[in-house]
């Protein structure tokens, strides 16, 4: 199997707070991440694609084309935004886990139509000390 991965960044704020729980429970579960006014990260986003290498271009996917999709579907939406205000996080707390799932959903649908080319996984790098993968590992 051959895969290509491209790395992006976006800066976003979030608060980890589950509205169905009490303030005390939120504080207990999320600790300093529950700070009501929020906090932010320079998120790293790694997008891994697999599929046949197109003999005309030498590519699985043209990097410019992937950039366009990721910018349009994810970066324009999340960069310099408060994630809790996004409709994607009205039901789900914007943890890095849920961000990874949301980004995967945003991208997977946009890649259809190219023969055999598909999104394999996304990695959300929240800080230099932790990252989150969603999708198929190889």
């Amino acid at each position, binding site marked *: 199997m*051959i895969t290509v*991965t491209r*790395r992006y960044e976006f800066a976003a704020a979030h608060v980890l707070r589950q509205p169905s729980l009490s303030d005390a429970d939120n504080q207990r579960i999320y600790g300093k991440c529950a700070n009501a006014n929020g906090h932010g990260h320079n998120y790293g986003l790694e997008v891994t694609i697999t599929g046949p*290498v197109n003999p005309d*271009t030498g590519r699985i996917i043209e990097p410019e084309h992937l950039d366009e999709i990721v910018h349009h579907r994810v970066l324009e939406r999340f960069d310099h935004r408060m994630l809790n205000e996004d409709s994607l996080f009205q039901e789900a707390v914007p943890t890095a886990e849920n961000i990874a799932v949301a980004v995967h959903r945003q991208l997977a649908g946009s890649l259809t139509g190219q023969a055999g080319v598909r999104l394999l996984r996304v990695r959300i790098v929240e800080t230099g000390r932790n990252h989150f993968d969603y999708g198929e590992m*190889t």
Partner: protein
Amino acid sequence: MIRITRAIEFSASLRYRRADLSEEENRRRFGRRVSRHGHNYRLEVTVRGEPDPVTGMVLDLKDLNDLLEREVMSRFDHRDLNDDTPHFEKRLPSPENLAAVIAEILREALAPGLFDRIRLYQDRDLWVEVVGP
């Protein structure tokens, strides 16, 4: 099962150019990549196996290093991928194709069953993995 990864770095030049297309068409398709340019590639080679009960090693890293020197560095480091290697006469020197070429070379050169995967970084923001036998 143990996996061991060894990294090497090499610098090479390349250009995207198909002989069957005009200069204009090459430039339209490949943009700035039609001009000769270069990358500092980083190659991570992962081998897998069971440690030898006596030596405690899957393989001698020095042997792996010698093999990478011989099979990869001597072929590609400070070379032009198009003009100094035979691998890109019929295909473009994209990271996908370069990784596929290196994977093929290493599968051949390594003892059977050792090859697990390679990861080839073209730069910090783009890399290709070739996984599996």
